[in-house]
Each structure stands twice: as C-alpha cells, then as structure tokens.
C-alpha cells in the first residue's frame, strides 16, 4: 500500500475567472493512486484509496501570476432525503437532474482559519491532507465539494461537486 496519495488540482485561473466556472476545461484533477482511480485529468476524478492512507490535495496554477488556493474541501453527506417534489405541478419549476445519490446541503463545516501573522488571509498556510478512515464503506464514491479561491474578491471562489474518493 502506498503511504500517501497526492491529488493535484491544475487550474487555468484566467479561463475559470473569465467563464465563471471550473468546467469547460478550466480544471484538471490528477492523482497518483495505484489502486485504480477513474476519470484522470477531468473534474470527475474518482480517487481509489485504502484506509490508513494519507490523501493530500495540492493546487497548481497554470498562469503562475494568478494566485490559486484551496478554499475548502467538504464531503457531501450521504443521508437519505425525500424524493423531489411532484414535477407534474406546472407551478413548480422542474427539479434539477437527480445526483448519483441523495445529497443534502453540506454540513456547517467551520471554515479553516487561514489568517497569517500579518493579519491577511493566506490560504497558502493550509495543508489539505487527511487520513482515510477505516469507517469508509468500500465501493461507494464519497463525493466532495472542492472550492478554489482565485486571487480575491466577491467572485473569487468557485467550486465543483464532482470529484470523489472511493475505497477499493
């Protein structure tokens, strides 16, 4: 078993900020797991992991002079939710396409304190890594919301919900 699995998040920051999305080829996720990851190089990367392994996320900016940092990684909860409202009712707008599994709003995860000694927020201080717990159920992708901060300002944070970890 590998001690550590690295996930590299490559971001075309200028493209992402122009499109206001991390899709359209503006992000590419790649890992070095040897356990059979899927969808390498896409925003839908499913990383194959083994309990006890350390998973580490690292952002890389294609345009080196636009700062790109990870703002948050939140695992989406898997508890059951009621089925979507009756879509036959014309007053109700059509429900969005159902996700692969029921998704509740993400739990209130306290935002990591990224304040540096000079009082400014610096997400470069944070190391995004953690140990895969033994409680993880095999064969089920645990999707996570990956939020990236591109420079600063009200429109600087973009996210995707598509990547996942999968215990093999």
């Amino acid at each position, binding site marked *: 078993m590998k001690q550590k699995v690295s996930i590299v998040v490559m971001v075309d920051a200028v493209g992402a900020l122009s499109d206001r999305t991390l899709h359209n080829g503006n992000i590419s996720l790649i890992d070095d797991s040897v356990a059979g990851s899927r969808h390498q190089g896409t925003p839908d990367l499913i990383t194959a992991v083994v309990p006890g392994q350390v998973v580490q996320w690292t952002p890389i900016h294609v345009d080196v002079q636009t700062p790109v940092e990870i703002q948050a990684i939140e695992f989406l909860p898997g508890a059951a939710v009621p089925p979507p409202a009756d879509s036959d009712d014309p007053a109700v707008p059509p429900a969005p396409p159902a996700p692969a599994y029921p998704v509740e709003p993400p739990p209130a995860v306290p935002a990591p304190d990224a304040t540096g000694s000079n009082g400014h927020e610096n997400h470069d201080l944070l190391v995004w*890594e953690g140990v895969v717990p033994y409680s993880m159920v095999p064969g*089920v992708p645990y*999707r996570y919301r990956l939020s990236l901060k591109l420079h600063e300002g009200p429109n600087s944070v973009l996210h995707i919900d598509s990547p996942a970890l999968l215990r093999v």
Partner: protein
Amino acid sequence: MAQQHGIIVLFDVENALRTRSLDGNTYWFDNMKFLGSTGEGTGDLVTIVPGTYFLDGSQATEQVLNWLPAALGAIPPTVPRNYLAERERAHDQRTLQQLAALGGEGEASGAELTRLKQRVGRRPRKQAGGRGLTATKLLDVTGSTTTSAAAYNYPAPVITDITGQAVSEKIIYPAQYGSPDMVYDGWYWAATVDTSRPGVYPYTMHVQLHELVEQNNELVWQSVDLTCESSLKITSDPKRNAFTGAGLGVLPLPAFPPAG
C-alpha cells in the same frame, strides 16, 4: 503554492531626465496587495512576501520576484521588440515611393521636397563608445517618424542592477534572466527570496534612462544612470492542517455512506 510576484515599475522618463532624479517620478505596483503589500501605485511600495514553513521548520514555499520596467508615454511594452525597426522601414519605403512619383513628370516643387525631407525624420546616433541602443530613427508613440523634440519616444528604461540591504543581507538573490518572451526585449530581472528571516528590507534599483542631446550637429542618445528605492516585507508562518486546524487527522467523511 508559491506565488510569482510581478512588480511593475513605471517611470516618468521625461520628468526624471529633467530633474535628474527618480524621486517622485516612479510608480510601483505589484500583484500582492491582497496579502498585504502597501503603497500600490506610489513611489513607496512595500511588497509583501508571505513565507511559510512546515512544522519541522523546513521552508515550505519559495517566493519569486519579477521586476518589469515601463515608461510613461512610451510605446507599450506589449508590441513586438522589432516594432521600431519595422516602422522605420515602412516609412522609408513609402517616402521612396513618393519620391519616385515626384520625379516622374514635371518638376517637383520645393515645398513637396521639403515635406518629404521632413518625413524622412532624423536618426540619432549612439553615444561614442556606448553600447546597447541601435541607431533607429526618432519615432513618436504611434510609430511615425518625427523631427519634433516634444513628441519623440524615449527608449525603454533599463534595469542595470538591484542592490541594497535586501541583497547584502542575502534575503534576495537578484539576477537578470533571458526568456523567449518577445515582450520586455526577452530580458528581465528576477529573484528568489529567503523567507526564513521576517522583517522589512529595503533595496535599491539601478536604472538607465536615455536622453537625446545635440552634439556636433548630431543627435546622440546619452545614457543617464539613476537609482530608486523600494522595500520588501517578509513574514513567515507555520503551515497547518486545513481539516483539523492543527496536525494530521482523519478526513471528515459523512457518518452515513452515500447510497451506492
């Protein structure tokens, strides 16, 4: 990730040459205001350099500084480096065509010849024994030849050295590098930063400007060497785990597994 700091230094060349000083004639700007740089757009820029280290004390990120000079009222640095030569040649060709047209029929009027003579413009020489500037014609910022002393375009300012406390205390290691970039003539000054010693460190930038002077009935570009000051503020903070706020822990997976 380490950031690449872009530091633009904008020079008011004309004023600097007149007063023989860069005081009040430089405007500094960098891309790190959001991490605490101060004095953006003034002569008193303090560039923040946020250093980080791992909990074992080893350096976690390297910071890179890139200095790029620019001149007020000059040809924009985004045009290709052979812009001046191309414009000069185009002008010569058009003048030759008009001259040929004049000689075709009848007599060329003195006024037309004078106009064409004006068109050809003037070509300043290099300083005797001087290096660097090619002897191109005087062009204005639109790339047209000019004989007007008020409208010509100054050659781009050249950084010739970076010295001062930040260098002598080995906080930065500046050097000039070449790149295939067509902008900035393919040369630029850059430095890596030792972020293990927080503090404010001033540095001195040595700049060469060029002044057009009349000498023995000839125009000559003379180099004028001036200096200006700026400083770096280096901070250093430990890295910490983003999930736990402290050391390594288990990933915060949901208690209930997603339905397969």
